[in-house]
């Protein structure tokens, strides 16, 4: 039984509260592991919350359902975001986040479809995830299924040539059942994307490759909602939502700082971050629940 089935499960306030909880779990996972990628996780997590709580047909009790919607985290290093959202969605206990990257457990550093419930594709090597998403969307056509496939890429990831091979193929096969997101936070490990290897203008590039191009504020649920709704109505070709985001979003000292791409906070930094995130969560809950 697919639970969301296009029903609007959460309103904007509830989505914001869920995203605040997910951010806390991201920090928990990366801090406990003393390793991982907080910056990009915090920039894409709002979109993942929107997808798993208000967009995709998924069922934590039947994670392999052949009719479910698929999600591929092509920027696989942001596994803390995916694992946190899957946990909150009920695929596994939120306590499992503490086992992130641990030799003792199954929560591998990058998404692992064989061991982490709810993960649709093992990813981590940039550029490959979007191709696998194209494969899933093509398979829907072959199998006569109407599920949708979603993929999340990084703006740095757009430097991988394979991404554009996949973009070409999705256009050739008119994959209106595929929706890709690019988390445009402007930063990659070595610094500004514009300095390392400019990938802009992404809108013109995707358009030229035959895609529908949409834009959204990646931290605004109303904006995300409009973009995803628009994408659903564009069935003649694949769509991409270019997300305007802030790397490290929600933790003031991590925001817009490439240094937090793949670094865990120390204990003191962790306490500071958690205090900030908890204050934000309390504020959201206070406003919503009164």
């Amino acid at each position: 039984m697919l639970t969301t089935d296009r029903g609007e499960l959460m309103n904007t306030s509830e989505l914001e509260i869920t995203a605040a909880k997910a951010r806390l779990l991201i920090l928990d996972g990366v801090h406990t592991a003393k390793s991982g990628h907080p910056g990009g996780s915090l920039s894409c997590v709002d979109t993942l919350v929107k997808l798993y709580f208000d967009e995709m047909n998924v069922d934590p009790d039947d994670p392999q359902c052949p009719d479910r919607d698929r999600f591929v985290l092509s920027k696989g290093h942001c596994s803390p975001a995916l694992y946190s959202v899957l946990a909150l969605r009920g695929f596994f206990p939120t306590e499992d986040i503490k086992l992130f990257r641990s030799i003792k457990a199954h929560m591998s550093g990058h998404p692992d479809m064989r061991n982490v419930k709810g993960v649709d594709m093992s990813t981590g090597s940039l550029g490959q995830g979007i191709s696998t998403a194209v494969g899933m969307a093509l398979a829907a056509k072959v199998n006569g299924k109407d599920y949708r496939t979603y993929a999340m890429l990084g703006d740095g990831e757009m430097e991988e040539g394979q991404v554009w091979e996949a973009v070409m193929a999705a256009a050739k096969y008119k994959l209106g059942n595929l929706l890709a997101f690019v988390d445009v936070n402007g930063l990659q490990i070595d610094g500004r994307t514009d300095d390392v290897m400019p990938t802009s203008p992404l809108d013109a590039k995707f358009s030229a490759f035959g895609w529908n191009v949409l834009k959204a504020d990646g931290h605004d649920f109303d904006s995300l909602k409009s973009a995803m709704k628009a994408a659903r109505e564009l069935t003649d070709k694949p769509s991409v939502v270019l997300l305007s985001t802030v790397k490290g979003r929600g933790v003031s000292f991590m925001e817009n700082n490439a240094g937090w791409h793949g670094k865990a906070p120390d204990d003191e930094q962790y306490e500071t971050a958690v205090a900030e995130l908890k204050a934000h969560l309390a504020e959201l809950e206070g406003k919503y629940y009164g």
Partner: protein
Amino acid sequence: MVDKKATRAAYGEALVEFAEKYPQLVVLDADLSCATMTKNFAKSYPDRFFNCGIAEANMTAIAAGMATCGLKPFTNTFAIFAAGRAYEQVRNSIAYPYLNVIVVGSHGGVSVGEDGATHQMVEDLALMRAIPGMTVVNPCDANEMRLAVEALLEYDGPAYLRLGRSPVETVTDRAADYRFELGKGVTLKDGSDVTIAATGLGVQLSLEAAKILEEEGISSRVLDIHTVKPLDNDLLIKAAKETGCIVTVEEHSVVGGLGGAVSELLSEEYPVPVIRHGVNDTFGRSGKAAEVLEYYKLTPKDIAVSCKMALNKKN
């Protein structure tokens, strides 16, 4: 006149033959469908054929995504691109999640001929064999290829299948008690002095080499090792015990292919002299297929010489 047929031709026919029986079979190609022989499948089953263009990395990962949705993709391109260019896609998107994709590398080895070194893949068996969980299959003739395709359609997991460009004599159809099973070698000729363990077109060459040896009073056993991984350990250890030395024959580098696999096995389990007969850690070169094979000493005469070297080491 001996009837010859390329394994790639038999492969193309097998795809069409088994398409109805296996509705989950889908075929992907990278703008080489005339060479890889998937064109007839494309014509007969256009809804199950995907030409991904000259983009092998993408094709390979698309297949992985399809496999997660219950399809059984066969990806097709030259061996150099299948195992070389797309190595990491095979590793990370297919083998690591243990997906049901058959990676097909056509035009393996130096018998590609005229195209030369850039297109003569002599490291594919080594590369694919090094990936955890990969099955690696290198059939020697048209009959064996057809059976391999059927077996791989029944198989559940990642595998690499190597095809050859040049026509080769069909030899397995006349072998007594021949039966194809993944992971099981076949004794095509019994013998007691030396074992020749061959794969791909090395099998036909080795059967001819055995005749030369016979004339010189040397009794050789010829094993057809169509599955390079998992290796038929029992058959090879038994051969080592009974004949005391082994020559491996392959249209592949002597590094890491069948020769490497057999050496690894026997050095631990039953050390006997092993001579690795193949492309001697060098690149290929242009020429007619037969000329190139001769240049790299992939001839019955040269294999017979290697057998005598092995015998000398044993004695």
